[in-house]
């Protein structure tokens, strides 16, 4: 567009950045890259029961030229690897990649000659989503985390300079964008709790403690 290069760094650029990121995250258009079983779960996530349309993602663009999110769903074989790379290259910037399932993240259970051990050998990945296959809710969590990351992305070279300046001053958010579980992010109290835990470096411990509180036999009032 050019506007992000012409605007001087400051409040105006930040507002444009926020607006552009908000528009991007609200209507991710996925490139259909369903390969194997995870593709079926991805389709199930788009289906009425789990409904990705709630976040503007019901449309999966077949042409990578019109897509901005590539969900690599399924095992990537040696024969398929150049195709993955080609589709990724055909996507215009800004683009993101979610590697869905263990096969795409790390080769999964197929540790052999035929499967690329992780699609990050071929393309840069933004979010790794384990599972075999991950439930549709897990995919939705990954997409929500991706949205958060996109919301915090810089716009243009000036935007990147602003981000560097913020980092140098230490004005970074305590929790990295995309790192908080979606169920915590929605709730003010819990998200404050999580942020505090991140400051102390014990967020996983907090998650376990909260889970333990939910277990009936570990509650204090359990008979």
């Amino acid at each position, binding site marked *: 567009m050019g506007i992000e290069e012409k605007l001087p760094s400051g409040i105006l650029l930040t507002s444009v950045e926020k607006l552009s990121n908000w528009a991007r995250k609200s209507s991710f258009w996925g490139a259909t890259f369903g*390969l194997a*079983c995870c593709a079926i779960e991805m389709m*199930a996530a788009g289906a009425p029961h789990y409904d990705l349309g709630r976040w503007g993602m019901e449309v999966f663009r*077949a042409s990578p030229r019109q897509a901005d999110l590539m969900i690599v769903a399924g095992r990537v074989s040696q024969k*398929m690897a150049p*195709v993955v790379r080609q*589709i990724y290259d055909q996507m215009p910037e800004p683009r993101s990649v979610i590697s869905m399932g263990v096969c795409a993240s790390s080769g999964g259970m*197929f540790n052999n000659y035929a499967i690329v051990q992780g699609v990050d050998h071929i393309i840069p990945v933004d979010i790794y989503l384990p599972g075999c296959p991950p439930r549709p809710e897990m995919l939705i969590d990954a997409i929500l985390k991706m949205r958060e990351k996109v919301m915090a992305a810089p716009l243009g070279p000036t935007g990147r300079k602003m981000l560097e300046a913020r980092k140098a001053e230490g004005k970074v958010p305590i929790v990295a964008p995309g790192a908080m579980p979606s169920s915590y992010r929605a709730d003010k109290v819990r998200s404050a709790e999580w942020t505090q835990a991140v400051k102390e470096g014990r967020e996983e411990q907090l998650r376990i403690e909260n889970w333990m509180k939910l277990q009936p036999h570990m509650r204090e009032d359990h008979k």
Partner: protein
Amino acid sequence: MTSSTTDDSVYATERETTEGRVFNVTGGDWDTVTGSIDPLSNEKIVVNMGPQHPSTHGVLRLVLELEGETVTEARPVVGYLHTGIEKSLEYRNWVQGVTFVTRADYLAPMFNEAGYCLAVEKLLGITDEITERANTIRVLFMELNRISSHLVWLGTTGLELGAISMMLYGFREREHILQIFEETSGLRMNAAYIRPGGVAQDLPPSAEKKIRDFLVYMPKKLKEYEAMLSGQAIWHERTKGVAVLDVTGCLALGVTGPVLRSAGLAWDLRKTMPYCGYETYEFDVPTATTADVWGRYLVRIAEIKESLKIVEQAMDRLKPGPVMIADKKIAWPAQLAVGLDGMGNSLEHVAKIMGQSMESLIHHFKLVTEGFRVPPGQVYVGIEHPRGELGVHAVSDGGTHPYRVHMRDPSFVNLQAIPAMAEGALLADVIAGGASLDPVMGGCDR
């Protein structure tokens, strides 16, 4: 196509002379020759469809030579999802093999597992010792899986032919089946539920209730689909007379399943070479005579109805009993239950193996680390998969690991029929024909 001229006037005249043959070439011939080739209809373009394409049912690549809209040559290229499942099986023991085999054809995991387990049980010689409840549950889950596979087929075929809402309905109904699978085995797909010797766990009462509710719910939905599709003129236009493959063609190409039945031959392994007690169930084998996409659509809808019948019969004959064979040296040792911290070995089982029975402890240990041994030999078991005949050729050398397991997957063999269906047809019919074959690339490439 080049018009092969039998008109010899375009060629130079020749005559025999004392010096040999003499040709009389005049310049005017060339215009006649080029004039007879129509520039418009002789332009062939090569179009590459896939492997990334919304309509190729996974990563299938079709290289099409088109003349206008007509396909003159279609070459399917597969192998984009080859996972080396068969070789991986040689490095795992017989029970671990189930988790690999189940991910081959990911839309019908129960069938992959069942075929593999039937082959292992045939090698072990324990086919008759599988308990009745285990066989009933196997039939039940296989038929539920058949319904869910056909629903995905309906959904994706509808999507590819333009009936996009069919996709949403198909997946909505499928959710009910996936919830039944989850209730029983813990996983929606690829559950590794059917194991050599029986099934991994018993059917909980909550799952039985869900199945009963599903049996009431599904027929109503089927009526909706038929109203939406069967009566619709566009659907008729897109599917009638499209991608015809008659019985000779099907048998020559080795195509089995709904495609063969749509051509008129009622070959269904559940009836002709029954397994798992299928001979005791009452169901029909639907066929059609038109051998086109329309016929296959009718056959699959009818098969969903037949599967619902079988599910009901299976539910009615479920009697309490063990779901694993009695032979402790083969039966999977874990007795799983949902406890306070999730699903794991039930407390009674842990108490038994740790405190009470040394034998159980030994069995548990040996079966989980080493696995059972299968006497040497080879078998081939064929079952009726939603897409055709799924065959498992298992070779054992007497050890705890399979020596060789080959899966004759119906999608792999059925895809050979694409050129037969596509050549001479329009491009849109290639999509319809390919969709009607119902290929699943995971099974095709393994």
